[in-house]
């Protein structure tokens, strides 16, 4: 049994979610190959080769993989799928984008967002915004799976595995990247942060959102997140959104500021180890999941909290 894990990267740096997917592969058991598809991405392959549990890295270094378009990436994976019992990718925006394409081309089901490996053919995955956990069994020849990163401790470093070049498939030529507007931040990545300071609609404006939350985040070395309401209102960019359809996070400390706690938001953060809620409304549902709740006006409480942390 050999498992293929598709690495997520930006051609320069391997994304940490790859390590969680490799950890899930290790739970399934068997040899683990990692596919690094990109352009001028040898450094990524070297990083992947040093992850514990990896048997071999397959490097497809070609121009048509530079932007990780779903069409070309899926075709490459399918062309090399025959050797594998399982094909895994992180359940990130990128993994969710291309992997169902792989599954359909292989005529197999995809098992999305697994949080537990029960056996090589049986997995647990959340449904209904995490309000239920389904245990599902696949009878397909190849199990195509996306992995929820927060449910698996990232794989650490190990001995270097061999890197083998893999020939690319033809460029489908039906999709082209025009450009990216990426949020530039010196803060940790939301899904990998130890501490997250997250804001909701009660911040009231884009200016407040940044002026109130960022000093606290900087002091704690935290990432900044947001509720859907705050993103919809334009207070924060889309990639800040934590929740059922945004990012799933599980930091050691999650500080929810002015977030009421809609079901879809809780779905994205309730696995956090310690949850703090600061909200004016004592009846806000966020207090039902918070370890420490502070009923207070956030505009007083957050600066006071900032001052009290030394």
């Amino acid at each position, binding site marked *: 049994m050999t498992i293929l894990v598709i690495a997520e990267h930006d051609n320069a740096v391997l994304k940490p979610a790859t390590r969680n997917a490799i950890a899930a592969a290790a739970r399934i058991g068997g040899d683990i190959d990692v596919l690094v598809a990109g352009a001028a991405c040898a450094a990524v392959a070297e990083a992947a080769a040093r992850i514990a549990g990896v048997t071999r890295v397959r490097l497809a270094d070609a121009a048509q993989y530079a932007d990780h378009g*779903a*069409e070309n990436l899926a075709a490459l994976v399918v062309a090399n799928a025959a050797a594998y019992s399982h094909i895994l990718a992180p359940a990130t*925006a*990128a993994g969710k*984008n*291309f*992997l*169902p*394409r792989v*599954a*359909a*081309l292989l*005529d197999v*089901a*995809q098992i*999305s967002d697994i949080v537990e490996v029960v056996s090589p053919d049986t997995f647990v995955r959340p*449904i*209904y*915004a*995490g*309000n*239920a*956990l*389904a*245990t*599902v*069994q*696949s*009878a*397909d020849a190849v199990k195509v799976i996306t992995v929820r990163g927060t449910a698996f401790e990232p794989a650490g470093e190990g001995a270097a595995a061999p890197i083998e070049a893999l020939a690319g498939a033809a460029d489908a030529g*039906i*999709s082209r*990247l*025009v450009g*990216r*507007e*990426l*949020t530039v931040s010196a803060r940790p990545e939301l899904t990998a942060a130890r*501490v997250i300071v997250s804001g909701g609609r009660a911040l009231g404006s884009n200016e407040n959102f940044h002026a109130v939350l960022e000093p606290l985040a900087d002091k704690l070395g935290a990432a900044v997140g947001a509720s859907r309401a705050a*993103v*919809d209102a334009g207070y924060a960019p*889309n*990639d800040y959104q934590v929740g059922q*359809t945004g990012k799933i996070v599980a930091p050691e*400390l999650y500080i929810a500021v002015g977030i009421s706690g809609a079901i879809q938001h809780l779905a994205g953060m309730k696995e956090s180890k*310690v*949850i*703090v809620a600061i909200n004016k409304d*004592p009846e806000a549902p966020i207090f039902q*999941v*918070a*370890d*420490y*709740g502070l009923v*207070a006006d956030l505009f007083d*409480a957050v600066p*006071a*909290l900032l001052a*009290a*942390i030394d």
Partner: protein
Amino acid sequence: MKILVPVKRVIDYNVKVRVKSDGSGVDLANVKMSMNPFDEVAIEEAVRLKEAGIASEVVAVSAGVAACQETLRTAMALGADRSILIVTDEELQPLAVAKLLKAVCDKEAPQMVIPGKQAIDDDANQTGQMLAALLGWPQATFASKVVVNADKTGAAVTREIDGGLETIEISLPAVVTTDLRLNEPRYATLPNIMKAKKKPLETTTPEALGVDVKPRLKTLKVAEPAKRAGGVKVADVAALVDKLKNEAKVI
């Protein structure tokens, strides 16, 4: 240019989901059902493209039990011109739905299919991508902006990705799946709800479309997640800092 919009009947997003005590699934008896919210965004986008003179016809499609008709009537009240319902009592998984939609696309030849990016019941986020794969079409998932080229041979789509936004250019026909920020769906007006009752709704079956919809995944059990015990309310910021430092030891 014809646009096809798949819509799914799901448990209303305001309903608190209950897991059945026998672990066989969630309780759907006497629960309010609605159109999947991402599909409302999809219908809205298609209707706006029609209103802008870019699309000529908007066709809504659903698959499932006969009651999915209601969802299609809602889609038509929001502006879809006609509907197709693929009736089956079988549990439908994403691959099966993608195959059904492919069969419909083969007949209808739309230039664009706009599914919601995920359904809020099974949270799979697969169907649009699978459909694009089966058709051999490009895909633009998690769209927050769609601009169709003047000659309608392609579109520029801005997508919500983990680090921010990216814009891709795809050739048409294509599958575009909706994210929340694509638009704000309108409400159906009473006159439009009345008009929707007279719009054509065609029914077919998986058998008639020649699609095997047998589930590939077997659900062994459905359980409630471990409940997170609510904690304490603290009196003030000083007490909060004390708890975080000395009890939780996280700062």
